């Protein structure tokens, strides 16, 4: 159960970034899982290789990935934004493949483990044994979702993001800085993925091609939760994480990766607009 919540938090952080990009920039970023993968390696490098303390290494990952996200938006995304969705999809898929295989070449396929003090410390409550790290994942994710909600609802840039998700042209007309807002969106998305990576890396192995599966599951959550609707994506992520954990322990571990898609297809057959969705908009 708690394992499912951990998985759900991870998927939700990644899916929220994906939904944000889709909502604001109308863009499906197939390289989003690679943000997570790179974030995890940055964290590994900071924590294991440089010997930084956990909080510092955990903040280093989003810091580096924000820079990477902005660079990605400046180069690849700007070139493809005016193009058809075919081109956008293939371009981001190509980026994902380049990043994955570069990671394989540079870092090798050997999985890396980053156990921290919190991942081995166990909290024992009435026979229920829980690693502290899992509690940290949950608490931090909830705090971040709350922060994201506040940012999008209350700040000037956040409101600009919501406005852009409704009508880009109108935003440009009334003087919203469209480029700046898009850049902030990418920075936030990349940071969310990197934070997720820094939070769960102590619990799971890190390997170069973990991004692809994660992108797909996050997509399944975004699609099931209502296209581009952030809260829906978060809710659907937890649903997928919990189902996966339960199916993994009671039905079949080997087929757990297929669960997300079964859920997605089932939801879409029942409600084509997604669980909570009406139209695109954050």
């Amino acid at each position: 159960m708690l394992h499912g919540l951990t998985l759900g938090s991870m998927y939700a952080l990644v899916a929220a970034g994906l939904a944000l990009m889709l909502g604001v920039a109308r863009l499906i970023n197939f390289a989003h899982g690679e943000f997570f993968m790179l974030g995890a390696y940055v964290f590994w490098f900071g924590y294991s290789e440089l010997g930084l303390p956990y909080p510092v290494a955990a903040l280093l990952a989003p810091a580096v990935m924000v820079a990477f996200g902005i660079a990605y938006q400046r180069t690849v995304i700007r070139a493809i934004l005016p193009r058809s969705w075919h081109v956008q999809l293939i371009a981001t898929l190509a980026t994902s493949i380049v990043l994955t295989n570069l990671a394989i070449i540079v870092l090798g396929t050997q999985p890396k483990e980053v156990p921290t003090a919190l991942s081995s410390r166990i909290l024992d409550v009435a026979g229920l044994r829980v690693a502290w790290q899992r509690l940290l994942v949950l608490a931090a994710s909830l705090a971040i979702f709350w922060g994201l909600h506040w940012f999008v609802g209350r700040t000037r840039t956040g409101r600009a993001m919501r406005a852009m998700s409704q009508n880009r042209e109108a935003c440009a007309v009334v003087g919203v800085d469209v480029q700046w807002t898009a850049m902030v969106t990418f920075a936030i998305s990349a940071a969310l993925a990197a934070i997720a990576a820094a939070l769960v890396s102590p619990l799971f192995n890190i390997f170069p091609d973990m991004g692809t599966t994660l992108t797909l599951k996050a997509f399944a959550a975004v699609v099931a939760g209502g296209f581009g609707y952030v809260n829906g994506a978060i809710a659907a992520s937890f649903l997928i994480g919990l189902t996966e954990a339960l199916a993994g322990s009671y039905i079949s571990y080997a087929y757990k990766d297929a669960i997300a898609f079964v859920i997605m297809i089932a939801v879409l057959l029942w409600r084509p607009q997604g669980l909570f969705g009406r139209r695109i908009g954050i």
Partner: protein
Amino acid sequence: MRRVGWLVLGVAILAAPWLVAAVVPRQQRYVLHVLIFTALFAALALSYDLVVGHVGSLSLGHPAFFGVGAYTAAILATQARWSFLTDVFAAGLAAAVVAALVGVPLFRLAEHAFAVGTLGLALVASVVANNWVQVTRGPLCITGIPKPALGPLAVATLPAFYWLALAALIVVVSLYQGLTTFRLGRAFHAVRDNEPLAASAGIDPLKYRLLAFTIAAGLAGAVGALYVHYLSVMCPEEMTVALTVNLLVIVFLGGVGSLRGVLVGAVLFTALPEVLRLAPTWRLVIYGGLLLLVVIRSPGGIESLLRRASR
């Protein structure tokens, strides 16, 4: 003059085994192997282009149908001892049936979501191939798939297999042309170019998309069957996402929705890496970069360059 050029090209392609033997006698086997791969990949890419290029649905699930066909043929040939032609036919049929079944829910997804859904399908298929050990033998692979035989005629040598692959390619090319030129082709293009308009003119988009998807899957399954009969072994690695990338590179590098473009793409794609002798991971990095460059700089691929040159 042009006609003579085409005739020479056609004869050269038909006589390739002898030409290769005459020009590079030492590497005859290797060159023929590359040529066979080129023909099979060209056929597979053409089947893929039926969906991507002609009805405009970006499917990323083609490896699943290739895999269904390949495994069907592998199992029927090794365990039930079916003859070559019947198992190729059964492989195509199995892949088409699977496509028709999954196509109904998948086509409820619009544009991006369809791409994601089909990619998910490919992923699920490869998970199943790895884990359904009783049937697919998982990572142990199905081995000992017999060489094809057409009645009493055994296709055991490389030149013979080359002609078989070429014949298969010709069949796929004629099907591709037939499906995309006449009334049906016009309906496909109408659905691709303007879906609401097509629907209002009485062309049911779902019906035509599903039709193209099913036919493409059937062809992919049949090519998969040929492929395993050639390699005589089928492993789950043959149907990973990497295959989708290869197909995307061939189709988009060559030219979406164009017979000539896809054929040129397939030749370039299979010949280039052999010439460059790259490690597989570097190969994917380069393909990814190339794909990125092509879709950003010239979405029409090589075909658009050829058109410009001939004008």
